[in-house]
């Protein structure tokens, strides 16, 4: 399967956007997952709902809300412009923001599931061994939640690679800047006779996430081998 230069550019951009989105969302997602799994505070349910929001409302609405927030007149957009002189509109950074927001609920849920499964008696054991809460978190809670982190990353990456509605509504499709794989596929699908191009690009999408999948399976199996007994 030979891709044209323009198509390679689309692939490069997808990886950039998807990778950035995942990496940026990772710590945020883990922090949120931890809060939701462990902390008891008023408004916990509201936070929970907020995190799930991008999953529930149609992507187009999410994109539209992002546009309201990040437009030059919007609350975040104005602040970015005043302080840093940058705008994310029509930029790949905007596409990454959209992808990260859409991937967040998936990442948080998976991570939270693993954090909740961590045996807290191991954490108390660590504390009796002199570890302060932060060290307990780093050396016990975090590594024991690794299956959830991996699952979250895979889900998040796949979602980022496939994100369409919010991206195109928020930052439109600018070739070389925000035109990721799904946007290119959508354009091809709108055009009569564009099926060939659709198949080619969809195959690329699938391959990309297949690689992520295989990597995560492999890591997961290495990890699982250590922890499991007959």
């Amino acid at each position, binding site marked *: 399967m030979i891709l044209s230069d323009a198509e390679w550019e689309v692939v490069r951009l997808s990886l950039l956007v998807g990778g950035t989105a995942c990496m940026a969302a990772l710590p945020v997602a883990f922090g949120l997952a931890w809060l939701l799994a462990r902390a008891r505070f008023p408004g916990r349910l509201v936070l929970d709902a907020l995190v799930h929001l991008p999953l529930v409302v149609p992507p187009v609405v999410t994109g539209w809300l992002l546009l309201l927030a990040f437009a030059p007149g919007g609350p975040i957009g104005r602040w970015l412009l005043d302080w840093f002189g940058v705008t994310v509109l029509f930029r790949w950074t905007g596409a990454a923001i959209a992808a990260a927001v859409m991937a967040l609920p998936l990442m948080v849920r998976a991570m939270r599931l693993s954090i909740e499964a961590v045996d807290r*008696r*191991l954490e*108390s*054991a*660590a*504390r*009796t*061994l*002199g*570890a*302060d809460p932060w060290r307990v978190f780093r*050396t*016990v809670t975090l*590594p*024991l939640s*690794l299956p959830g982190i991996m699952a979250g990353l895979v889900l998040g990456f796949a979602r980022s690679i496939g994100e369409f509605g919010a991206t195109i509504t928020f930052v439109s499709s600018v070739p070389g800047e925000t035109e990721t794989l799904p946007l290119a596929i959508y354009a091809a699908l709108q055009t009569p006779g564009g099926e060939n191009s659709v198949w080619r690009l969809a195959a690329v999408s699938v391959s990309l996430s297949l690689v992520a999948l295989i990597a995560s399976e492999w890591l997961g199996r290495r990890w699982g081998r*250590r*922890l*499991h*007994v007959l």
Partner: protein
Amino acid sequence: MSFDVDVRCQVGEAAIALRFATGAGVTVLVGPSGVGKSSVLNMVAGLLTPDDGHVRVGERTLFHAATGVNLPPQRRHVGYVFQEPRLFPHKRVRANLLYGAPDAAPLTATAAMLDIGHLLERWPASLSGGEARRVAIGRALLSDPAFLLLDEPMSSLDPTRREEVLRDIERIRDESRLPILMVTHDAQEAERLATSIVRM
């Protein structure tokens, strides 16, 4: 005074209350199953907060309800061998042993003493019951504790190893003079080690 404990705590339906003050050496805590021995150890370690009372070990006040003193577990410098091994499943035996150790130097000696030198590169999931128990003892000893809490440390050890661990505890009692609070159901063990016996 080694242990000066006076705690009251409601755990589920069980009301646990115990007061004792013992001198240097090994304090053995005996009592029927379910009476609250492990809970008392948890209160001394700081994992369970008593509803009232105080906990003093050596010169230090670890908990005092009246003055609001309540040191977190990590600042109590306890070496706690739990009733179940509680090894970190994601760390090899070596990393488990060194988790609380300020210094890796005594590792070899301790591992030799507990006969676990050949297990250092193994994952905890692959250890037998007695092996896991010995690693747990080693991990507590290596954390350079100010006092020891041992919850049936000798269970699932064969007679030879039990004898060795008994001698080690005796040596710790006599040489480094660490206060030791130990739960055991074995009368012989209690008799041999105990400086004082507390019955619940």
